[in-house]
């Protein structure tokens, strides 16, 4: 007995000491707290939406089938999967969604990858300009390219609408498959996400030691073999990362397929929601399952992946392929033309649209008559007289637009700060405990919302926060919470990648000197990795500025610019939507430039030029 008591006390003390030691490391505390918080913010919406799939909703199909107005039922599952409408409500949209996501990935990887190769590995001319301009489609709201596509290619003969620019000016009519459906949707999304591929693949190309390729050349290996056996395998991780990012994003895109008349799970969710609410929630769950599946597939690839080290201790060199004296100019010029249509033309088109007398009325182009231009969309200061503006004031005086602009800035700044901070902490903590399972779990649970389609995440949070106790619909709080959860991966990935590059010795030296954690972070770690960390703040900010799918169901128009823009676009008031687009683009460019000047960080940093 005498020996047992001290042993128990000792054990308790040991446990206590272990606990003290455990929590004395800030990374452990961070992982524990954020692990719990992120589990709640990620899993609770999923449970809420899962519950919604079996709930009975008055006035919808489940109530009609069961004859009840409340309670639970599996009728939604049975009806969605087995009824006569299963093909139109589930299987066709599902197939379309998979096709759209896959082709978008292919387009973005080919376009972004080829461009990355040309910019980093060849003597292409105009690299600096092209590198900056290439990321514009990502800066712009994704459906603006869809609207530009419509304005360019629609025609009375094919789409039964007024003639677009190509038909009216050049009398060229494009076929239906070009104008609407899978092809234009995939092209628009592919172009929109090509900057992802460019940044990720370009990063590897830039750091890749050319010795391997040169060795192959010395061994007289054919060019194609070198490309497929050496170059492509080296960029495989970047391609996988692009697939990871683009597939989930394309799957959750609502506005692009909506504008280009293509039925996907996202558009079907919206159309089913009124009469088949529970079935719509099942569609959201299916989209989420895809997100989880992509994450798991990526994990498997990571496990089986061979070594793809691109940066070694040996001196490396980047050899540039010679495109030839003419080739470097010709290819550069081709890309200038392509990027003109993907990046510059939309901006010119938006600006021009704000001076047309009626939406889509290009009379000026046909006649040259300046009477067919107007400044009313900008300077009309009242909405009493009927000015052909559907009761709206001009943009300079339109309180709805400027209120929404303020709201967008508020949400974007708040999301960037919270997501950026949380993401940076996760990156830091995970890098410190990189072999720890809990750290891996936190890392994955933080990344999961990004892979879940935006519209599904929006739906889940709407359901979660529409109850008797917490009703956050149409509040900035809800947008900030959802935006933060969704954009943490931007920051966590940027932070983790940069923290992993950082040798532990640097911080250990400071620990030995008994320098507190805050000081170590702000005086050592953050300054060293400031570029990546700032990217982790900038990406959520820029993405949030023009996010629609995520916020579509969470607030009304007039709260933020993207929903206001979508409202005006749907109303056919293209002058307003184009004007808002310009405001957004200018805002993003200003912020990007300011951050670039102050910190030296930018989206395409280090790749081009």
């Amino acid at each position, binding site marked *: 007995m005498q020996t047992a008591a001290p042993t128990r006390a000792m054990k308790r003390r040991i446990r206590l000491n272990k606990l003290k030691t455990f929590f004395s490391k800030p990374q452990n505390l961070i992982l*524990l707290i954020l692990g*719990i918080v992120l*589990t709640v913010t990620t*899993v*609770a919406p999923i*449970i809420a939406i899962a*519950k919604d799939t079996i709930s009975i*909703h*008055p*006035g919808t*199909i489940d*109530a*009609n089938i069961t004859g009840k107005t*409340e309670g639970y039922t599996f009728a939604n599952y049975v009806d969605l999967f087995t009824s*006569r*409408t299963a093909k*139109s*409500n589930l299987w066709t949209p599902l197939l379309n969604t998979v096709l759209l996501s896959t082709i978008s990935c292919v387009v973005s990887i080919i376009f972004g990858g080829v461009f990355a190769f040309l910019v980093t590995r060849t003597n292409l001319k105009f690299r600096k300009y092209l590198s900056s301009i290439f990321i514009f489609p990502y800066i712009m709201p994704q459906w603006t390219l869809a609207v530009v596509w419509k304005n360019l290619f629609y025609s*009375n003969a094919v789409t*039964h*609408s007024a003639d677009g620019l190509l038909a009216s000016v050049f009398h060229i009519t494009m076929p*239906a498959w070009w104008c609407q459906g899978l092809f234009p949707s995939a092209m628009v999304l592919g172009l929109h996400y090509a900057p992802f591929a460019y940044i990720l693949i370009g990063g590897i190309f830039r750091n890749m030691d050319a010795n391997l390729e040169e060795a192959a050349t010395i061994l007289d290996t054919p060019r194609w073999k070198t490309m497929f056996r050496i170059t492509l395998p080296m960029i495989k991780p970047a391609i996988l990362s692009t697939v990871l990012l683009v597939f989930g994003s394309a799957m959750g895109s609502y506005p692009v397929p*909506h*504008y280009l*008349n293509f039925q996907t799970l996202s558009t079907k969710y*919206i*159309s*089913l*929601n*009124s*009469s088949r609410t529970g079935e719509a929630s099942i569609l959201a769950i299916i989209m989420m399952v895809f997100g989880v599946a992509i994450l798991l597939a990526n994990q498997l690839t990571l496990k089986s992946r061979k070594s793809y080290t691109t940066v070694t201790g040996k001196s490396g060199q980047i050899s540039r392929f010679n495109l030839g004296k003419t080739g470097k100019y010709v290819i550069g010029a081709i890309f200038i033309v392509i990027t003109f249509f993907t990046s510059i033309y939309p901006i010119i088109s938006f600006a021009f649209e704000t001076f047309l*007398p*009626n*939406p*889509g*009325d*290009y*009379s000026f182009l*046909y006649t040259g*008559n300046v*009477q*067919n231009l107007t400044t009313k969309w900008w300077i009309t200061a009242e909405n009493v007289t009927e*000015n*052909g*503006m559907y009761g709206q004031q001009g943009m300079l005086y339109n309180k709805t637009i400027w209120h929404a602009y303020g709201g967008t800035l508020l949400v974007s700044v708040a999301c960037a700060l919270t997501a950026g901070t949380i993401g940076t902490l996760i990156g830091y903590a995970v890098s410190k405990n990189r072999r720890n*399972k*809990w750290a891996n779990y936190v890392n994955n649970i933080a990344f999961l919302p990004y892979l879940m389609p935006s519209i599904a995440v929006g739906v889940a949070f709407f*359901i979660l926060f*529409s*109850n*008797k106790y*917490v*009703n956050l*619909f*149409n509040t900035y709080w809800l947008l900030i919470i959802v935006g933060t959860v969704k954009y943490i991966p931007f920051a966590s990935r940027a932070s983790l990648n940069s923290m992993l590059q950082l040798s532990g010795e640097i911080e250990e030296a400071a620990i030995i000197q008994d320098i507190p954690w805050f000081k170590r972070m702000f005086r050592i770690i953050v300054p060293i990795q400031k570029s990546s960390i700032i990217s982790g703040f900038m990406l959520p900010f820029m993405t949030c500025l023009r996010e629609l799918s995520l916020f579509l169901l969470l607030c*009304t*128009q007039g709260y933020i610019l993207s*929903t206001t823009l979508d409202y005006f676009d*749907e109303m*056919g008031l293209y002058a307003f939507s184009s004007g808002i687009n310009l405001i957004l683009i200018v805002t993003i460019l200003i912020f990007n430039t300011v951050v670039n000047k102050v910190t030296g960080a930018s989206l395409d940093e280090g790749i081009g030029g």
Partner: protein
Amino acid sequence: MKKIIAMALALVMVLALVGCNGAAPAANNAQDSAVKQVIKEAQGMTLEELCKKAIEESNGATFYGVGNSSRGKSALPLFIEYLQTIDPNYTLNFEWQQPKNNKIFDQLTADSLKDKGTFAVTLIQDGNQIESKMVKTGILDTFIPLDWANANGVKADEYNGYLPLQTLNKVFEYNCTGSKTFTNCWDFVAEGEHGLFMDVDSEIVGKNFLYMLTQEKYAGYLKEAFDKLPADKQAYFKPVIESLEADAKDLGLGANGAYALAWIKLWVENYMAVEDDGPICNTLVSASATDQFGLLVYSKLRSVEESDTVSKNNIKVAAYQDGFEGIGGYGYCHYMFVPDNSPLPWTACAFIAFITCTVDGFSAWGKDMGGYSSNPTVAAGTEEKYGHSKGGMNEAGEVEFECKNDRGYDWWVNNGKLVIEDPAYCASVAFTVGSWIEMLTKYKPE
């Protein structure tokens, strides 16, 4: 150990948070009866009396409204001005929300879970969903103003329907820069025709239009129009009608049900979906949209500005043309309701009375063509004030834009054979005719 503790904590938090969702609206009984009692009392009051009650209740408060029409935002300042004529010191802050994508129903449902709601009043469309999701569930209450009841010759406490603020019409219009004409409503579903129309899944009132066609009265209109078609055109439609007779029987439709189903089938399988009526209007008034037609909100014509290639004279309203046979469009209502947990029920009732019983109150909607007050007195006053029947005439009294001479509600219902939405009927066929419609394959250009 730490992982187990963390997981357990997380699970508890998750379940607690999700558990919040389970609360049913049943806890609102006390508040429900309070709002209903206010409504009962308010239905016997004049506008003046209601306004005094509103001033007592809401002076200095914030009034939240939610609606399918953005015009509530324009009407509220007029209402406040009116209250200030009674009490110059009266003030009221307000916020008007206009959710999209059918979210208004989710928003009102979520708000109904609270003891005291956020929204004082709502202006809402889609009789089908109102009936099944809002009224049967007790979320919204109908208030009938005394003056409105008197003007319509009904007794407020005996009136069974909802209170419509106005009826809006969507009418068939076609581009007339070519030679094509549309003289019968079956011409809109003839071979090779692809009318522009808001997708029925985007705007649910469009689906209600299709439901309403199956009601015997409107199916009868279609049969009459069919009988007046020339034989060659009848020959095209006849097999489709005959093939749907069994379906009409299965769906429990009346004698002319197959005509309705045939028209619906041909329409759904051929219309060209457009996001909104605005773009449809912009397309049709363009010179390049030769021979195109659409079914769109009539009032969109108000905002077309004349230019070298765009003109209101590039389109014609089908029903206005001599000899046109059959339905000329459809009408749906904007209804006014007081949420059962309205935080300001007296003010909501006064606001509803103001916009349904005075020309000034209705002016936010009445100033434009294509919206018809449900109050005959207000409708007459609005016509007198704004002269929509002569909206297309110039100052010399000559017709400048024929399509803008709005012939008014009575003409549209009696001569234009407008299909009017009936909420109860729509709700009753939503999952019979509705499911049948969902089986149809929508048009895609080839």
